């Protein structure tokens, strides 16, 4: 039965192709891809205001993505935002006195975290906290600042 045989091979190929497509989509087009097969270490940051930062936003140094925002929570005592970052283990030489800022892609784009490495010989390790931070710039506050020319200092500097 040759034709029957061919049909089964074609059907098998189709199934294979379909499953490969599913896996490929899951790994390259979703956040599964950034989690899959990579190890991370956890670093915490406190901000007074995270603005529109969302989980899974990229974390970059010099524009290169090195990790993602894992989680954003409110510290119930200090009322600061606790942001947990997952940073790829290949970037394990980040100085301890690195500063973090919440930046925006374009004028209305998504928020992301940009890290600015310091000069300390010590490196960040899992569970460490970045202390030098600059919160999200709220456009409304900026406008308010210019309009009323108040001299209140920047949020966090």
């Amino acid at each position, binding site marked *: 039965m040759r034709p029957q045989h061919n*049909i089964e091979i074609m059907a098998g190929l*189709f199934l294979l192709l*379909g499953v490969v497509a599913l896996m490929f*989509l899951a790994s390259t*087009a*979703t956040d*599964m891809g950034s989690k899959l097969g990579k190890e991370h270490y956890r670093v915490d940051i406190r901000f007074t205001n995270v603005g529109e930062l969302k989980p899974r936003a990229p974390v970059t140094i010099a524009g290169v993505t090195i990790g993602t925002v894992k989680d954003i929570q409110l510290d119930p005592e200090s009322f600061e935002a606790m942001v947990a970052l997952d940073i790829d283990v290949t970037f394990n030489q980040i100085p301890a006195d690195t500063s973090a800022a919440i930046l925006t892609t374009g004028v209305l784009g998504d928020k992301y975290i940009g890290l600015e490495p310091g000069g300390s010989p010590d490196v960040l390790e899992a569970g460490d906290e970045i202390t030098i931070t600059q919160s999200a710039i709220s456009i409304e506050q900026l406008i308010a600042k210019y309009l009323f020319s108040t001299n209140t200092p920047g949020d966090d500097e």
Partner: protein
Amino acid sequence: MPAKKTKLITLRKPVQIVGRGILFFIQVLTSFRPSLKQLKAILSQVYFIGTRSLVIIMVCGFFVGMVLTLQSYLELSKFGATDSVGTVLALSLFRELGPVLTALLFSGRAGTSIAAEIGLMKATEQLSAMELMAIDPVQRVVVPRFFAGVICVPLLTALFNLTAIAGGVAYAVYIMGVDSGIFWSNMLSSVEFQRDFMMSFWKSLVFGIVATFIAVFSGYFTTPTGDGIGRATTQTVVVTAVLVLIFDFIITALMSWT
């Protein structure tokens, strides 16, 4: 008096069809036997249903991806947010367009041919002949087609999404010059596996069940005439389209609650 009688009949008919559908659905599910023969029959139906729908699904997917990118690029460029074009593309594909369009295309390509095939078997007494040979026609004819369809639709949806993304990349990156790294990383960071990918999967699974079941049901219960088979194929496409869109709303509502 006659008016009252016809009113009762028009009310009775749809209820009867729904009831018959539910019973038939249960019968199809319980008729599945995990035997080698059955699995082989399903596999060869996967060829007729799945492999042969591949080309139309992929061609349509590619162009849907391109047009979707073109449209969103035009709008997003007004805000200078063309980097998000990958996000818009992926989210609308995963959440809505992929499963829905695949189900509709599938119904038009494979559903109609399933309905016509089974209807023709009924009209030429092949189903009767099986019963008389003590072969259960549901088990032999309906079950392989149904399960093959249910397997095929999610896979076809994945292939549709994949080619649509490829079409989007082709248009955005190679024609409009969006940076491919930004395109992918924006898509990656905004498509959630749990929320979007799984929604695509669950939807396509449900749509696969709906589309294939409507096809086998219309074929199996058709009036065994040429006219009846014609109506069965039309009915397959129409009923599938309506039910898919209804279920689309229900699943979206359910999944966004949790």
